[in-house]
């Protein structure tokens, strides 16, 4: 029963993950597992210092835990399911190394929780490091998803001759674009490490490290369902050995209730059938209800630790630069300081990104920016018909915007690096940036006998098609910088863009300028060198500022 529910939950998690992609319907909560995670919610609400709508979903989990107990870890948590499944695959028959100082280790997760919460209070989002939902989503995004696409393509390639022979046209031409991510290896190492820890004890992660488990364990002993042992118990201690969470103390009639995840394995293995999990309001069952031995010193240490980490990570030169940061953030990302506080680094936006331009940061904006999404526009542009990154953001660090709003959420401005541009530096004929620009923000004007590209900043919304397509090898000769980006915590981007006199709409623009070099042989200008257009002085007829 438990395995069944666990499998279902993991499948649901995977399905929701798969659905987080372009064309996601507005009503579909693809990020539901992340929304339900109370630790991520708490972290974002504390760090951002405001109530976040989607984080309120976590109240469901809190409520259910208050009623039932810490069932989440055993039945719902996809991380727990993955750990159990991989444990079964790899370590079933291995002799576990075991641990001595169990009780001390068990408190680690609480210390971590305190560190994360206190860091959040200072304004540092840190829980993502170890929150199981964020961790697993990241692992799925940066490792599983690209791997699966590779395998599917490999499989399709292998079967292609068969499909062709059978005349299955669509299948014989099917090929999925391969997503690629930075930091895939790091993410794999972390996940691999968590699984390997099972060599020591089963569910090592859940027992000792998981801060979400720690949070739930604080309230779970209030739940209705509890492990109860009747008089038939002969203290054979089989239950103690079988308990993956180490929730059975040396006196097996008692229970460490914060640790018990109600997997009911003990009831199954008990030869006396002395164990039951019945609902009752009375606190008659024996055992530990709270971490009674949780030391004041430990609490203070971890609190101080969290505050110190928060201080160290937020008070850096990066913090001062946050208004002048260099990273291109997704359209709809709230102002940088708030963004860093609210983003829980789940990687869902990067998974869903249609063009694969969203990539995780390593140290580009300091420790506080770890794994946050940035656009790598040399790799791929931001597609103007897609707004999925905001839709799947569980804390709305990237706001969910309509397509029109998203078009006006300017993420930066393209600038030409004239020393690299083929036209500016080498007088070559190249028009690719102009050709590809969806907003006609690039125009050609004659300078020194040649038509040369210029960017009209008020028409550029930073989508990066030009940067990606620029034929210069290596770094692009036209790059999008954060200049002019619009980051709004609330309110309309369209209004803001209008206020700033920006216009991102399809418009013929100055295309008449490119006539002479557009491949037509213009007869009047055929006579030799006269075809070079005269330099048009960009000076207006009247001095600037006069009408």
């Amino acid at each position: 029963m438990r395995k069944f529910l666990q499998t279902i939950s993991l499948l649901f998690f995977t399905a929701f993950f798969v659905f987080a992609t372009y064309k996601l319907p507005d009503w579909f909560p693809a990020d539901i597992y992340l929304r339900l995670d109370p630790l991520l919610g708490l972290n974002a609400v504390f760090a951002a210092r405001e109530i976040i709508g989607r984080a309120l979903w976590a109240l469901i989990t809190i409520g259910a835990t208050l009623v039932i107990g810490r069932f989440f870890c055993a039945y719902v948590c996809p991380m727990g399911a993955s750990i159990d499944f991989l444990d079964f695959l790899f370590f079933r028959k291995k002799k576990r190394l075991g641990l001595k100082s169990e009780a001390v280790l068990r408190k680690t997760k609480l210390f971590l929780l305190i560190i994360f919460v206190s860091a959040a209070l200072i304004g540092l989002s840190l829980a993502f490091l170890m929150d199981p939902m964020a961790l697993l989503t990241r692992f799925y995004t940066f490792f599983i998803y690209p791997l699966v696409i590779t395998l599917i393509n490999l499989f399709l390639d292998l079967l292609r001759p068969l499909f062709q022979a059978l005349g299955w046209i669509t299948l014989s031409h099917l090929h999925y674009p391969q997503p690629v991510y930075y930091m895939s290896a790091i993410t794999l190492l972390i996940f691999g490490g968590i699984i390997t820890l099972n060599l020591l004890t089963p569910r090592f992660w859940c027992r000792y490290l998981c801060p979400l488990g720690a949070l739930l364990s604080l309230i779970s002993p209030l739940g209705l369902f509890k492990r109860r042992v009747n008089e038939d118990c002969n203290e054979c201690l089989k239950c103690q050995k079988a308990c993956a969470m180490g929730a059975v103390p040396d006196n097996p009639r008692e229970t460490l209730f914060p640790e018990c995840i109600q997997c009911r394995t003990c009831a199954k293995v008990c030869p006396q059938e002395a164990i039951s999990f019945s609902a009752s309001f009375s606190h008659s069952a024996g055992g530990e209800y709270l971490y009674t031995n949780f030391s004041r010193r430990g609490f203070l240490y971890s609190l101080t630790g969290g505050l110190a980490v928060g201080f160290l990570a937020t008070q850096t030169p990066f913090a001062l630069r946050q208004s002048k940061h260099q990273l291109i953030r997704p359209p709809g990302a709230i102002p940088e300081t708030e963004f860093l506080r609210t983003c829980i680094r789940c990687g869902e936006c990067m998974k869903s990104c249609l063009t694969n331009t969203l990539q995780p940061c390593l140290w580009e904006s300091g420790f506080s920016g770890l794994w946050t999404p940035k656009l790598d526009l040399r790799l791929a542009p931001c597609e103007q018909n897609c707004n999925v990154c905001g839709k799947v953001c569980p804390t709305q660090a990237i706001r969910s915007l309509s397509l029109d709003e998203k078009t006006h959420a300017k993420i930066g401005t393209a600038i030409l690096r004239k020393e690299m541009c083929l036209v500016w530096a080498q007088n070559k004929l190249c028009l690719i940036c102009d050709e590809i620009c969806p907003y006609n923000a690039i125009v050609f004007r004659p300078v020194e006998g040649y038509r040369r590209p210029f960017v009209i900043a008020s028409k550029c919304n930073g989508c990066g098609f030009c940067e990606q397509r620029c034929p210069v090898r290596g770094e692009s000769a036209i790059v999008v910088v954060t200049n002019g980006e619009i980051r709004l915590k609330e309110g309309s981007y369209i209004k803001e863009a209008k206020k700033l006199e920006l216009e991102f709409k399809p418009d013929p623009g100055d295309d008449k300028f490119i006539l002479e070099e557009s491949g037509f042989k213009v007869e009047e200008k055929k006579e030799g060198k006269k075809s070079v257009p005269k330099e048009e002085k960009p000076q207006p007829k009247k001095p600037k500022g006069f009408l």
Partner: protein
Amino acid sequence: MDQHDRMITRRRFLKTAAAGVALGLSGSSLFSEAKEEYDLVAISGEPVAATRKAIEAMGGISRFVKKGQRVVLKPNMSFARTSDFGATTHPLVVATVAQACLEVGAKQILVLDHTLQRAELCLERTGIREACKNIPGVHVLTLQDRKFFREIKIPQGKVLERVEIMKEILDGQVLINLPVAKSHSATGVSLGIKGLMGLIWDRESFHTQYNINQALADLATVIKPQLTILDATRALASGGPGGPGEVKKPNLIIAGVDPVAVDSYGVSVVPWYGQNFKGRQVEHLLMAHQRGLGKIDIDQLKILMEKV
């Protein structure tokens, strides 16, 4: 490509047709027109009606597609834009041609392009996939991986000696080019011959490595569509190839066997960038003409102009 053989077959077929062998064409009045062979037909009207009429006037699709044959249609669906931008072939034009091929018993109809923008979006936004959805045997596909291409030599190539083109058009299939009429920032216009670039793998080198006009003429020596139906129902008169730009509405469907002639006529239908041009003024068309790939002076052609 086994071009030569097919030309003979077509000629032989036309003789047979002229001899009056009925082939079950719908609407026998077309037949009389088929006898009187036009170099070009330019039909004015709504996309579906004009396309149908253009096919009929060219002698019916059965002149090009025979029962059991496999057909590749090459529309322009390279940009994720709706058809009103004029950057892509009108979906109804594609569907009408596909339907016609189906009616004469084509075994399989592939609608292919190697898109410039994200394939999924192109298929969706251009409306071409949707328009062909309910026509049996028609598959709208984008080939976005190198494995679907094969390298061939270009014996007459001046700048391009070899090129990787879609395997699907190498295997003796019928190729019908369905370009859209639009301006192009590097080649002046993008019509049928420029549209062939959607059938090759490495487009970038055309822009960066070679003289694009010469390379296009090279390409046209090896990819020879049996029929070109130019969708000039809308013409993107500036801002091409991707738009946005000025969209004019010539409401024309231009069809012909000679790819240079079709394109040359296409140049004449609207002013590009606000100026009138002739086919001779478009460098890649002139080069293709000079290399014997087709006629460029449209005033010497026999053209059927009609309104439906």
